[in-house]
């Protein structure tokens, strides 16, 4: 499993493109939105939590089809499916690798980009906390969507259509945590629910994704 994780990470770093694309997208969005909205601090600060979360979500979405598609093309997914480790573990590891190359860097650069968006200062710690807790769910749900569409030749559009409604709860709770943090309100409930979604997704979705892959490889 460790070997698989390292292999996926190495592939992501060396093949270029896919890895940086999400980050670049996130960066562009955070620069372009203030230009489009205008410099008035009040408006920008109020929409900043939502913009940052939507940006992180879309950046995740960009690289989803790479989770399984490349392995499916060159046949290594078949090998992984017949490997001695369970397919559920393969899915979990691949989702983890996806999170390490998208979710984690997004979380790290988010506070820097929040400066552009005039996020009120109370929101910064909660922005990082909510992204750390929420982006694993995005990767895991995305891995499930990628597993459903892995057999299709052009599954990209379908993948976004399938995954988008599944992302809704994560987005709502994530944005809500940052918004409440920025306004200095109590945020225990949405934070707990956000963590619950991530943990639940990590616990259950590998099984759904693995069964989808088994069907697709049949």
């Amino acid at each position, binding site marked *: 499993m460790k070997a698989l994780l390292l292999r996926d990470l190495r592939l992501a770093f060396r093949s270029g493109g896919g890895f940086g694309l999400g980050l670049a997208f996130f960066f562009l969005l955070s620069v372009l939105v203030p230009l489009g909205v205008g410099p008035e601090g009040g408006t920008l600060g109020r929409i900043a939590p939502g913009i940052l979360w939507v940006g992180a979500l879309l950046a995740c979405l960009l690289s989803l089809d790479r989770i399984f598609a490349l392995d499916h093309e060159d046949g290594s997914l078949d090998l992984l499916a017949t490997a001695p480790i369970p397919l559920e573990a393969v899915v979990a590891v691949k989702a983890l690798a996806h999170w390490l190359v998208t979710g984690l860097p997004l979380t790290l650069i988010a506070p820097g980009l929040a400066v552009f968006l005039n996020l009120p200062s109370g929101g910064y710690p909660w922005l990082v906390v909510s992204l750390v807790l929420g982006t694993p769910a995005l990767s895991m749900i995305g891995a499930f969507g990628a597993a459903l569409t892995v057999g299709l030749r052009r599954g990209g559009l379908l993948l976004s259509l399938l995954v988008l409604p599944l992302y*809704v709860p994560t987005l709502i*709770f994530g944005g809500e945590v940052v918004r409440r943090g920025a306004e200095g309100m109590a945020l225990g409930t949405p934070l707990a629910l956000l963590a619950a979604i991530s943990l639940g997704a990590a616990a259950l979705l590998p099984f759904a994704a693995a069964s989808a892959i088994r069907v697709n490889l049949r």
Partner: protein
Amino acid sequence: MSIWEYANPKKFMQTSAWALPWAVGLTVILLVVGLVWGFFFTPDDYKQGSTVKIIYLHVPAAMMAINAWIMMLVTSLIWIVRRHHVSALAAKAAAPVGLTFTLIALVTGALWGQPMWGTWWAWDPRLTSFLILTLFYFGYMALWAAIEDPDTAADLTSILCLVGSVFALLSRYAVNFWNQGLHQGASLSMDKQENVSDVFWLPLVVCIAGFILLFVTMVLVRTRTEIRARRLKALLARERVA
């Protein structure tokens, strides 16, 4: 005699052929009675005027939009557990019907909301969760359409339906967080003291019964079509081999 006998396509076709005329007839009678009664023989509401009458389309459609998804969930489970093809085809057949009900609920709601709330659309919890439900229906149907092999498609859409149901529930709960509900609470229930008055209630119940039967009828028709399409494909394949 068990319910699984109907999982046999032949038995299903026989039974549904017998049941279909009755279902169609009852649907027409109930819908005509309910809608005509509701539209022309009930008084206007003292606050809402005649716009209140959209309830006879809106409420039954919204109920069936959710129930259609629940029915798809049940048939998907049956397909996963017992692998009865009729079950998978019934789920496939129900999706467009459910989507149509969802859209009817959204459109009638918007038409009613314009004069009453002063807006076509509000990001109210109920409205938002219906929008998300629409997305789920679209995704489900797109997945069916995208996969060529029918068994693979049935398997994958069933998995999507199971996972989607959990997330649909989650979203329903999540949107409650905004708690800026414009939408009024339920005006119908078995145990509440304050229901809408009988004048509106009785035709509404008839309409709901009509919509349930309408759903059953359309799912029966569409499932029969799917089964015939499947048989036709098998015949063509056999002819090509021979």
